[in-house]
């Protein structure tokens, strides 16, 4: 009898083990492989001064690594226009994206917007500016006809889509015919310097870069006139893949939203040149999507 119970006990132990192996262990293995990654690979879009930019983000990455217990690695994602492609090829987990690429990534890659920074001036958004030299005599859209324009990059809201949408709203549907020439500078700062130096009559760039340069150089305020401004949108947003573990996502969000409340976090924020992070939502990008739609119609009309 006791031998029966002994063998039954052994059988039950084996059965429980088998059941554990069959139903519990594999999912547990899947969770650890797919949802608790060894590292988070985060992309950043290149700015005008890429060396300063890498320094600013490096301290943030170190802080997040310490707080999350997951190594946060950074990678530069080539130029603006290739961000969506590069996101896939680099197998990124997330990225700090400018407003237009964030809008496209949310739509095409199903990324989820997490947080965006509030800059040192207290601004949590940026807007597009269209500007000219004050001594150019250009005061409105009619004065712009026949002149030269510098844009930033085809994949920027402030530096291309906004001016395109603005021109279309004001009756300019053929850029090749209405303007003398146009070119892309590659950075917001270069677009501003291009107009200041006279390489272009009209420029488009984002307000945060414009205002920062103007703070350090009084001639910018004295010599440039802002003709038009776009709606305000988040400047840079951290977006994550939707497959990232929800606990990790929540923890990452919490760390970023709370970091201005700790001395260590404040120091990192200072290096990152931000006051704090605030929560982002997909609704933040609706205005950009509308502008992109208007701009796409303009692109369709003038074929550029």
């Amino acid at each position: 009898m006791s031998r029966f119970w002994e063998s039954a006990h052994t059988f039950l132990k084996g059965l429980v083990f088998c059941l554990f192996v069959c139903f519990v262990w594999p999912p547990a293995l899947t969770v650890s492989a797919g949802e608790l990654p060894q590292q988070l690979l985060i992309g950043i879009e290149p700015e005008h001064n890429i060396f300063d930019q890498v320094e600013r983000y490096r301290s943030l990455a170190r802080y997040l690594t310490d707080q999350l217990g997951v190594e946060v690695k950074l990678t530069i994602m080539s130029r603006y226009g290739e961000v969506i492609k590069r996101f896939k090829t680099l197998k990124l987990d997330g990225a700090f994206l400018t407003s237009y690429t964030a809008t496209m990534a949310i739509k095409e890659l199903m990324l989820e917007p997490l947080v965006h920074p509030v800059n040192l001036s207290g601004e949590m958004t940026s807007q597009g500016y269209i500007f000219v030299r004050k001594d150019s005599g250009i005061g409105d859209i009619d004065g712009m006809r026949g002149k030269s324009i510098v844009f930033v990059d085809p994949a920027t809201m402030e530096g291309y889509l906004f001016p395109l949408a603005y021109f279309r709203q004001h009756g300019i549907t053929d850029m090749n015919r209405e303007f003398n020439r146009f070119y892309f500078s590659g950075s917001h700062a270069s677009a501003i310097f291009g107009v200041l130096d006279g390489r272009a009559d009209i420029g488009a760039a984002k307000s945060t870069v414009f205002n920062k340069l103007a703070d350090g150089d009084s001639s910018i305020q004295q010599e440039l006139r802002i003709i038009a401004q776009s709606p305000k949108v988040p400047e840079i947003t951290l977006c994550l893949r939707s497959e990232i573990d929800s606990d990790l996502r929540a923890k990452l969000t919490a760390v970023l939203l709370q970091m201005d409340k700790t001395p260590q976090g404040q120091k990192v924020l200072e290096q990152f040149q931000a006051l704090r992070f605030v929560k982002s939502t997909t609704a933040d990008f609706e205005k950009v999507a509308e502008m992109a739609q208007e701009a796409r119609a303009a692109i369709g009309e003038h074929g550029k």
Partner: protein
Amino acid sequence: MQTSIRPLLSILLAVLFVLAAATASHAEKRIGVIMTGDVPYYGAMHGAFVAEIKKKFAGVEEVEVVLQKPFPNAISWSNAARKLIAFDVDLIVTYGAPATQAVLHEKSRIPLVYAGLYEPDQAKVSGQNVTGCGFKVPMSSIIRYFKRLKLIATLGIVFSSVEEDSVRQYEEMREIAALQNIKTEKIDIRSQTGLDQLLEKNPDAVFITGSALSHLWIDDILSILRKKHIPAADIFPDEQESGVLMTLFQPPQAQGQMAADMAAQILLGAKPGNIPSHTFRDTELVFNLKEARRFGIDFPIQLLIEATKVVK
């Protein structure tokens, strides 16, 4: 024998004179041109002018261009203007403010087209018989780029008080520098001995205005500055790469072409007063890395990408 040859020689000479006169009078339009100084900037402008005017009148009418390149001083500019008026040209073209003002001073009825004037609106060169084009260079950009390369507490400004547009450029730069708490040192070049001022002063950088006199001795100026380890910026192009660290200039060819277009309209009957003047504002920015190395200056990559040309 000799007596029979003499009348033949006289006839031959007369025929040659008639032929020569006929050739000379074959030029149906005559344009007189005065450069403020014989400097490459005006030379490039004139090259573009001549090429364009020949293109416009090719196969239609012969146009003769009489060029005057006086030494840059008031008497020489005035003499050049008087010569062209006496020559009764159909049109006068001038490069630079001093040559333009010298022609206007003569109050001739000959139409005038100017080019190479700094901010023509500010130059007091308007009139019923006058039109032309000029340029504007944003001086603040020169200070901005200098400041990104080195600390600028004092800026030397090379100009010539006998050249009206050079004086205006000096004043403009002085005001911009003052707004940025940068002291300025006046280096007035009226003759070659004026270069000695460069030996006495020690600014952190030097800005060279578009003065014809200064550019006559640009090699000497740059040689002195190089010995004193002072970088220079110029608003005339340094085509010879003679040692200017940065140049921010309006390409002169565009002004030469526009002056030719205006000249052609006038020669074909248009009134100068009906042709609006034009100010070119497009610029080219050139950084000379060879000079930068000489001065031990590192150009940040963010600055280099702003340049339209980099001399390596």
